[in-house]
C-alpha cells in the first residue's frame, strides 16, 4: 500500500529471454488448472461427463462475474470489499419488484449495484478515502440494507427470472453465456478502449496519470460503478438459479474468492495490470479446488486449511520475480 509497492512498468523482454520465474508467474494458473483437471480425470469417478462440466460452469458464474469487476478495480490499485453485500442487495430487490415485471425487477436490482458502485467511486475517486475503508463501510451498511429489504428467505416464482436461471440454448445455460459475454466485454474494455488504457495508466502511477492530464476521477468512478453493476448482475443470476433470495447468505465471503481468483490469475494487487484470461482461469481453479474437495468428501475443516495454504503458495509464486529483483 505504500509507494514502495508500486512496481515500475514491466520491461518488455523478448520471448526467449524470459526467466522461468516470470513464465510461472504468467502461466502458473493455467498449468495448475490443467494439472487439477488431469488429476480429477484420473481419480474422480464420473468427472468426465457433460453434467459435471455444465454444473461446474454454472457454479463458477457468480464468482467469475464478480472477479471480472474486481480485476478492473484491482487494476486501479484499489479493492472492493462490498461486492458480496451488493449481490445480496440485488438478490433481495428481485422479489420486491417482481410484481412490475421481470425486466423492471432485474433493472432495479442492477441499478442498485450501480448506485452502490457510484458511492464507492465518489468516496475513492473524489474524496480520496482509501478503497478498503470506503468499500468496508458499504459492505457493512449494504448487508444491513439487504436484510432490511429482504427480511427472510423469499422464493422467486416469476417464470422470466426462473428461465434466466435455469434456461439454456444449444445445451449451454444462459448464465454461462452471460458470464462469457461479460468476460468478452471486460476484455474489450481493458484491451481495446481508451478507458482501459487510462485505467491501467492510473493503476500503474496515479500521480503521473494525473500530471499527464488523464481524467483520473472519472475513470475511478466508472470502474467502481462497473464493479458494482457486475456484482449486482451476479446476485441476480444467483437468485434466478436458486429461485430464492436469502439476504443473509447471498454473496457471503464472495469478495475473498473473487480477490483470490484475480490475484492467482496474475493481476498484481499493486495495480497497473489487468489479466482477464488469468482471472477466468483463477476463478475456474478456485471452483475446481472446492469441487475436488467436495467430490472426495473432504471435510470443511481440511478443505479450508488446504485453501489457505494454496492461496499463500500461489501468491508466493506470483511474487517470485519481484522479490528476486530486490
Amino acid at each position: 500500500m505504500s509507494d514502495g509497492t508500486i512496481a515500475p512498468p514491466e520491461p518488455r523482454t523478448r520471448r526467449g529471454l524470459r526467466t522461468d520465474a516470470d513464465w510461472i508467474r504468467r502461466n502458473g494458473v493455467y498449468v495448475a488448472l490443467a494439472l487439477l483437471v488431469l488429476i480429477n480425470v484420473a481419480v474422480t469417478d464420473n468427472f468426465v461427463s457433460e453434467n459435471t462440466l455444465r454444473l461446474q460452469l454454472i457454479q463458477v458464474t457468480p464468482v467469475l462475474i464478480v472477479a471480472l469487476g474486481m480485476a478492473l478495480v484491482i487494476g486501479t490499485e484499489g479493492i472492493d470489499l462490498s461486492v458480496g453485500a451488493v449481490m445480496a442487495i440485488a438478490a433481495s430487490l428481485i422479489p420486491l419488484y417482481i410484481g412490475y415485471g421481470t425486466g423492471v425487477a432485474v433493472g432495479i436490482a442492477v441499478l442498485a449495484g450501480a448506485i452502490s458502485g457510484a458511492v464507492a467511486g465518489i468516496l475513492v475517486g473524489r474524496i480520496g478515502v482509501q478503497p478498503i475503508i470506503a468499500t468496508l463501510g458499504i459492505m457493512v451498511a449494504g448487508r444491513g440494507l439487504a436484510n432490511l429489504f429482504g427480511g427472510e428467505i423469499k422464493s422467486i416464482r416469476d417464470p422470466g427470472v426462473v428461465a434466466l436461471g435455469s434456461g439454456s440454448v444449444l445445451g449451454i445455460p444462459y448464465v454461462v453465456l452471460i458470464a462469457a459475454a461479460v468476460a468478452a466485454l471486460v476484455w474489450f474494455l481493458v484491451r481495446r478502449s481508451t478507458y482501459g488504457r487510462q485505467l491501467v495508466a492510473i493503476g500503474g502511477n496515479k500521480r503521473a496519470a494525473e500530471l499527464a492530464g488523464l481524467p483520473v476521477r472519472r475513470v475511478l468512478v466508472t470502474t467502481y460503478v462497473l464493479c458494482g453493476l457486475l456484482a449486482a448482475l451476479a446476485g441476480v443470476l444467483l437468485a434466478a438459479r436458486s429461485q430464492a433470495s436469502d439476504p443473509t447468505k447471498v454473496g457471503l465471503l464472495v469478495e475473498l474468492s473473487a480477490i483470490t481468483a484475480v490475484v492467482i490469475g496474475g493481476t498484481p494487487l499493486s495495480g497497473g495490470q489487468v489479466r482477464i484470461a488469468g482471472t477466468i482461469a483463477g476463478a475456474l481453479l478456485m471452483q475446481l479446488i472446492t469441487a475436488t474437495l467436495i467430490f472426495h468428501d473432504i471435510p470443511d475443516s481440511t478443505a479450508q486449511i488446504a485453501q489457505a495454504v494454496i492461496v499463500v503458495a500461489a501468491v508466493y509464486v506470483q511474487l517470485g520475480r519481484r522479490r528476486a529483483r530486490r
Partner: protein
Amino acid sequence: MTTTVSREESAPASPRARLARLAQRQGALVILAAVVLAATFSFDTFGTTGNLSNIALQASFLAVVALGMTFVIMSGGIDLSVGSVFALGGVLAAWGAGHGTWAAILLPLGVCGLIGLVQGLVIARGGLPAFIVTLAGLLFARGLLLLISDEGATTYKVPPDSAFRELAQGELLGIGYPVWFVLVAFALGGLVLHRTSYGATVLAVGGQEDAAELMGLPVARTKVIAYTVSGLLAGLGGLLMASYTSSGVTVLGVGMELEVISAVVLGGTLLTGGAGTVLGTLVGVLLLQVIKNVINQVGSLNSNWQAVISGTILLVVVTIQRWLATVQRR
C-alpha cells in the same frame, strides 16, 4: 500513499489546522459524547448502572482484539484473521478447561500467538501482501477450529467447577474482570506506543517503510511483533468470551475483523499507517457498542439498522477525516 499526516508536519500550524487535527483525533469522542447524552435523555433505561456496565462488558471482548489491530494498522498493515482467531481461541479455551485452568489460558494464547507469528513472518520476511496472508489466516484458523470441534458439531463446555469461569464472570468493585483487563491492556498499549522505542518504530514503519528501512530500523522484526501481538490478543478475547459464556461457541467471530477495523479507523488511526492512538481505538469500540445498545433500546428498530448505521457512520467519519487532513495541510 503520500497523504499520511506526520506529526512533524502538523506541529507548528495555524489555529485552524490545530483545531482540525484535534477534531480528527477526537472526532469519535465528540460523536460518542453526543450519542450518550441523547440516549440518556431519550431512554430511561440507558443511563442505569446495570446498562452501562453491560455496555462496558460487551465492549471489552471487541476492545481486546481492537488493541492488537491498532498496532498492526499503525505499522501500515492489516489483519483480517482476527475474527477466526478469536473463535479458535474460545474453542481451544473451552476444550482446555477440561484439562485445568492453566491449559484453558495457555493453549489458546500459544496457538493464536503462533498463528500471528507465522503470518507476521510470511508478511515481513516473505514480502507477501498482508491482505492476502491474513485472508488465508482467516480460512486457516476457521479450518483448524472445525477440525478440533468435529466440523463444528461439538461445543465444548467449561466444567461447572472450573476456576476458569471466574476469569470473565468475576467482578471487582461491581465491574466485571474483562473490563479491568481491557483498562490494564490499553494502559500498557498506550505506554508501549507512546513511551517506548518499539512504539516509535511502529509509527515510523507505518509512516514510511522505505525511510524506516534506510534509517536502519528493524522493520521486519517490528511487523512480526505487531502481528504476533494481534494474534495473541485475538486469542485472549476469545478465551475471555469462552470464560464468560462457559463454552466454546464455534460460530463466533464471523465478520468481527470488519467491526474491529471500523473501531480502529473511527478512533482516528489512519489506515495508511503512521498515526493514531490506542485511546482513540477504545473510543471507537465504545461508540460501536453504544450504537448497538441504543438500537436495542429503541426496540422498534430492526437489528439490521445497526449494520446500516455503523457502516454509514464509518463512511461519514472517514470523509470528515479526509477533509480535515486537507484543511491541515493548508
